[in-house]
């Protein structure tokens, strides 16, 4: 079992300074980091507890229905917020699936992103919500779209001394609907074998616009299925559209065989999950004409 040191900081500046020193890692919920360190799958000179930094603990729904999630906020806190649950059900789909109840009490969206597992449950939905990641570092602040943040299995784009501070979710377009579905072999406590996040709007005729499709656990990073938008744009929902989207997901997937599933299975699953997630997102979306502005 590995040993490491423990530091606690209360400001972003102190965190950045601590992270610049040696091989230190930020500690939020610890549900990934602690077992990784103890089992020797990662190493660190020290962990830096960032949970006392106010900016990383904020959880704010703006007046325009955008959302700022502090990187250390626990999944449980997010999922139990009635306003967020109402306004962002597609995000909650994913965030609520990060582990069982005990994990939910600690795990953070920030951690889910920084661990950068291609199977991270929060990630596909964040992608289709156009989430932006706010990072602070030695040379100041920067922003990343989610897909640019995840650069390999277990690898994020943070440089030395950089800290993910918050996740910004812009207000969805009027009538936007989103969903996240994953497949696991049991009914809980598993890492996703394959997962899908989908977001879409409908015009006044019920035709799909602005569809985004992201796949999890079927490649070294989550995969944005670029062709999906074009396939769906202007189309009415139909079995044929679903089939085409499913096929596009299947074609875009680059899965492997591992202890959680086979490549063959995963390709089939993203096809099925895409169709099912589409239905769920559609049911949450609202046709433009019936959307009441207030």
């Amino acid at each position, binding site marked *: *079992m590995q*040993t490491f040191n423990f530091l606690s900081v209360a400001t972003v500046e102190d965190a950045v300074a601590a992270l610049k020193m040696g091989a230190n890692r930020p500690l939020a919920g610890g549900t990934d980091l602690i077992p990784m360190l103890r*089992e020797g799958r990662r190493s660190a000179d020290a962990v830096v507890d960032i949970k006392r930094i106010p900016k990383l603990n904020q959880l704010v729904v703006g007046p325009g229905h955008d959302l700022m999630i502090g990187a250390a906020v626990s999944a449980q806190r997010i999922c139990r917020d009635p306003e967020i649950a109402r306004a962002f059900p597609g995000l909650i789909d994913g965030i609520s699936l990060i582990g*069982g109840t005990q994990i939910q009490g600690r795990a953070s969206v920030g951690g889910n992103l920084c661990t950068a597992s291609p199977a991270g449950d929060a990630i596909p939905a964040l992608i289709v919500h156009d989430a932006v990641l706010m990072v602070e570092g030695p040379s100041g602040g920067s922003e990343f779209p989610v897909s640019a943040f995840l650069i390999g299995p277990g690898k994020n784009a943070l440089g030395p001394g950089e800290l993910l501070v918050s996740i910004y979710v812009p207000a969805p377009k009027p009538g936007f609907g989103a969903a996240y579905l994953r*497949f696991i*072999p*049991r*009914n*809980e*406590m*598993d*890492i996703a*074998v394959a997962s899908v996040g989908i977001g879409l709007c409908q015009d006044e005729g019920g035709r799909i616009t602005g569809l985004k499709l992201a796949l999890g656990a079927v490649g070294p990073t989550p995969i944005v299925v670029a062709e999906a938008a074009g396939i769906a744009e202007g189309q009415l929902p139909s079995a044929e559209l679903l089939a085409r989207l499913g096929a596009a997901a299947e074609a875009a997937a680059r899965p492997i065989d*591992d*202890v*959680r*599933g*086979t490549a*063959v*299975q995963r390709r*089939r*699953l993203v096809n*099925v999950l895409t169709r099912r997630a589409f239905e769920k997102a559609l049911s949450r979306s609202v046709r433009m004409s019936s959307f009441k502005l207030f």
Partner: protein
Amino acid sequence: MSDQTAFKVIGTRPVRHDGVDKVTGRALYGADVRMNGQIYGAMLRSPHAHARILSIDTSFAEALPGVKSVVTGADLPAMADKIADTGEGAVNLRHLSSNILAGSTALYWGHAIAAVAATTQTIADQAAALIRVEYEVLPPILDLAAAMAPDAAALHADVVTNELGEKGKAPSNVAEHFRHEKGDVAAGFAAAEVVIEREYKTGTVHQGYIEPHSATVQWNADGQLIVYCSTQGSFGVRSEISEILGLPISHIKVIPTEIGGGFGGKLNVYLEPVAALLSRKAGGRAVKITMSRIDVLAATGPTSASIIKVKYGATRDGRLTAAQVWMAYEAGAFPGSPVGAGSGVILAPYDIPNVVIDGYDVLCNKPKSNAYRAPGGTNAAYAAESALDELARALNMGPIEIRLKNAAKEGTRRADGPVFPRIGFVETLEAVMRHPHYTSALERSSGPLRRGRGIASGFWFNFGGTSSASATVNPDGTVSLTEGSTDIGGSRTSIAMQFAESLGIPVDQVKPQVVDTDSVGYNDATGGSRTTFATGWVVYEIGQKIRTELIARAAKMLETEPGQVSFENGVFSNGAMKNIPYAQVTADLDKTGGPIVVSHSMRTRGEGTAFATHIVDVEVDIETGKVDILRYTATQDVGHAIHPSYVEGQIQGGVAQGIGWALNEEYIYDKNGKLLNAGFLDYRMPTTLDLPMIDAVLVEVPNPKHPYGVRGVGEVPIVPPAGAIANAIFDATGVRMMELPMSPARNLAALEAAAIAAAV
């Protein structure tokens, strides 16, 4: 035999005596033990599935400040080939010794190579990592086909095949080939009008107890060894330590802690002799070693992967005329898979006139297999019950119909020899037929979710064995009952209930305690579904003796002859209006002859076998291969249920394990023999969300041989589920699953292959 209709205690559901400690966190399990001055042990384990150990350099570990001792296989005495019986099958002690610390060869990924003891766990872990081992990596043998191939390299130079009773000449990975025969199978198949022949595979599965193994051992200056451990059998631990370390039994005291699950996996020692050696080398300081979850999965005995071929022949009226079985089980790195037991289970529910069963015990570079709840039975029943389902459908018969037609009864002879006494198999079938689960229609759905229903039966021998116990009557009328059966699931209460019934006092007046090996006579392990049966019988006898003695004392107090005194409802009476309450007799024991202390020991016979028939409804998502259990009913002949809640609990627990085995549990190895899923994340056991309520139907067919009609109940529940679920999946999808686990990836592949085949 007692009157079974007038029980006062048996059949009730008292709160267990150790319950308050367990719900408040006070009960002490293996890892909760603390001895003064204790130091902490850590194991170094092989990173190779098969490798010659060329050298071990412990100097860097020994130099680390805080390290008190280091041991390797060289510290274990050389062992002769000797077989011991630990209560759930015979154990070769030399193999057990090599399993605890490798000799010349590492035989599986995780095989213990060396151990360190240090003042803190952190230092011990660091020191273990500093031990330098030079290996010559050898090709691993990782499956039955590879192990049994004619040109396979033999893992052990001194293991030859016991070929139908004759010792082979050349080293082989087939440690044993045995055969059971009954009648004339050639004639039987010739007479058959329908023949079904199928081959099944099952994966390696672990008992999955939540408590990792833990032992704290102190080697005293006078050569006395004190051993605290979490174990199913303290006397087995004592004798294994004695044999492995070459110590007299009188030097070893084993104190069993509470145990957090065993299911057969905690019958043999892993840590105790190592901790003893570390303690001796550390000047006698107590050494505590607790396994990590990785260690548990990598290096303690899982149960065997297997290949089983079943062939049935039957006439059109549904009567089986012949059966042929070929079954090979992986023993892991040392011989001793449960293939023998599997061969007894596989066709046991059926009266088949002509049978041949060939069984093979096969070595491979995986951890040494260990007993897992009805060892060998689940694999066997999965194959036999799946094939029987196919046969039934080919004959246009229902699952209960074909089983009734061929049911074993009292007097039927099993293929492996024994003749059945009074059994309850038919009663379980009848219970199923009466049950609403069976008679209710299964809603079939359209769309991707398909529902199906499956039925399977199973058998387990149960075991009697030897138990000993003692009882002391206290002045306040309570009785201190000391017994040596470690309590895995509430048995101390079932035992106390039988004692209370026998003596004639309320069960809360009994104070049962599980004590160490110096404080009670010999007890076989808690396993084999024997404890309620055997230890219960022993305390029944004690209760009878105490009853007799108390009647004699009361007679003295009543100034009459014992023959004139009766004891009912807590009162001794001479029938002539003169009576004395129980509490007064016990308060005055000193005056009537002194304390009453009774011990008894029995090597029991007449254990009742157990049969079960299960029904399961599943829902299969044919687009993903996911299987959900919708409804589960388990009927079982449970003899007389002493504490019905605990009998139900044994059934529900065994069913849950069987479901996990059927759907998701398996060891996954890479091509080098490294175990890839040595943790509870990827070794997938059922969670609360994966199971419905489990309806346990207790069919009481009392065992005529036992004073209270007890049959063992704990093991047979794990035997039918895999077969029942496979049959349900077929009912739902039309696809037969020929390999366990029936995990989503496998199901999906099978469904897709079938769809392609159907489309062609």
